[in-house]
């Protein structure tokens, strides 16, 4: 279909003016009370689930062997912490996921920047990238073990594989979707290609890159557990799987609860990182997810 003068139309775009932030102190107070209010809403459902978790096994509606009470799970966590066993596994999992994620971060961002910047590269890589990123990481686990053995290398490699795609894809799309008006403005001020990249493309892609990194963090935490369940003798994945095998159900739930905490901490850390890195966008207070 024809779209006449599309090239010219872009010159006619309108942008609505922004509103000024009037009074910082009042806003801050409002935000604080708003947050507390929001927090109480968020906690409600969690508290109900915890209550059910306590009551159902206690009253025998659910067999307490299959679902030990919440309080027993907490006590188990405490004991595991006191014996030092839990820390060993947490640290093992963290080491693996940080190694895999760190690698994915470096490779994903640097490759993504290059691939987004040089359009021509994408033509050659797109099919390859699309094929791999849509393949289940878990399905490839046996392949990694076959090729790299059951040691640390295969586990770190699989975490890397899971985490690198969202980082790579988001970095590419961040670079490619930089608004052309910023590029035009910078060009009009005579920037070189290098400066354009450093001072415009890079900062403009940060929000998209961070979104990819957040997904990467999430993926690496998920993948590490699966990898440890398949082949490992340490780590939270191994711990949970092992506890199930020896029917220490309270330890199974203790492990799961610890994982939930780890996930929450990782998520909120990333929210904080995102906020710090994109402070210039404003309006991020509501975007906690």
């Amino acid at each position, binding site marked *: 279909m024809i779209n006449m003068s599309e090239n010219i139309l872009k010159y006619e775009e309108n942008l609505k003016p922004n509103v000024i932030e009037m009074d910082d102190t009042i806003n801050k107070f409002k935000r604080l009370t708003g947050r507390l209010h929001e927090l109480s809403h968020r906690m409600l459902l969690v508290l109900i689930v915890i209550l059910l978790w306590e009551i159902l096994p206690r009253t025998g509606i659910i067999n307490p062997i299959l679902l030990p009470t919440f309080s027993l799970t907490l006590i188990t966590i405490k004991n595991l912490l006191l014996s030092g066993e839990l820390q060993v596994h947490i640290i093992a999992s963290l080491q693996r996921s940080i190694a895999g994620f760190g690698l994915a971060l470096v490779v994903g961002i640097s490759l993504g920047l290059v691939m987004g910047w040089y359009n021509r590269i994408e033509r050659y890589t797109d099919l390859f990238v699309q094929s791999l990123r849509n393949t289940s990481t878990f399905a490839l686990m046996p392949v990694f073990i076959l090729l790299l053995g059951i040691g640390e290398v295969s586990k770190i490699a699989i975490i890397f594989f899971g985490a690198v795609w969202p980082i790579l894809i988001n970095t590419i799309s961040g670079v490619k979707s930089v608004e052309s008006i*910023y590029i035009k403005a910078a060009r009009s001020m005579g920037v070189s290609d290098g400066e354009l990249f450093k001072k415009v493309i890079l900062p403009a892609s940060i929000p998209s890159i961070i979104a990819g990194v957040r997904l990467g963090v999430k993926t690496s935490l998920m993948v590490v557990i699966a990898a440890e369940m398949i082949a490992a003798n340490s780590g939270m994945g191994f711990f949970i799987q092992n506890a199930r095998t020896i029917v220490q159900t309270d330890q199974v739930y203790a492990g799961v609860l610890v994982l939930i905490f780890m996930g929450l901490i990782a998520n909120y850390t990333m929210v904080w990182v995102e906020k710090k890195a994109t402070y210039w966008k404003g309006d991020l207070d509501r975007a906690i997810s």
Partner: protein
Amino acid sequence: MNTLDKIKAEGVKKKFKLKEGQQVNNNGTPSNEIEVLNGVDLSIRKGEFITLVGPSGCGKSVLLDIIGGLTNLTSGKVYHDEKSIEGPNAKTGYVFQQYALFPWRNALSNIEFGLETQKVPKEERTKIAKKLLSQFGLSDFGDRFPYQLSGGMQQRVAIARALATNPDVLLMDEPYAALDAQTREILQDELLRIWEETHTTVIFVTHSIDEAVYLADRVAVFTARPGVIKQVIDIDLPRPRKGNIRSSPEFADNRHKVWDLLKGEVIKAQKDWELATVYGRQ
């Protein structure tokens, strides 16, 4: 060439290639090229304020891009101080309708951007930027990010940014089109005030005839696409201009002159648009 000419355009033509599958109607024949400028001749004098008006799509913004060195022309020549324009030039400042402030930089550092490119030392940069901020009445807003500024403030910062490198030509592409009427008038007066002080050559694209007449020494009226200059009108209103000049009979005369020239072109442009739409449906 007259040595008083700051910018001289000779027979400037510009064609855009359309995307694959897109076609336009060029005088009845389908084409995958769109002719935007069809031989623009225009001399812009040093220190003058010229406004460009024309129907949508007539290529006036494209001419601005060509003068700014951001787009190549298909044929013809454009000179800046008798030198052929080959690319962006530090002596040319550009202000866009969408402000185009970098959202990750605060107002002060936005203004410093062009100076950084020119390797001006940090201290000097900040000094220049602060001075500009105060000229625009924004001294207290240097550390604000664009999202914390109103549209009028953002455009002020954008103009300050364009002026920071002390250009001798300022290109303005419908800079006030997105602002409300009151803010627009205030910014027009501010711009005139600063122009009176610096006498930078200003080339200002607008859709508002009122704005074109109020600001300009001369108004260049474009034809419908493919654009050429239909006529250049001298605006002989006294300077410095004040808002109340708008209600003078002389102002109205000039306004009518421009509109008389423009009206037919706007109608032609709309027909062109309709034809294109009909053609596209086939």
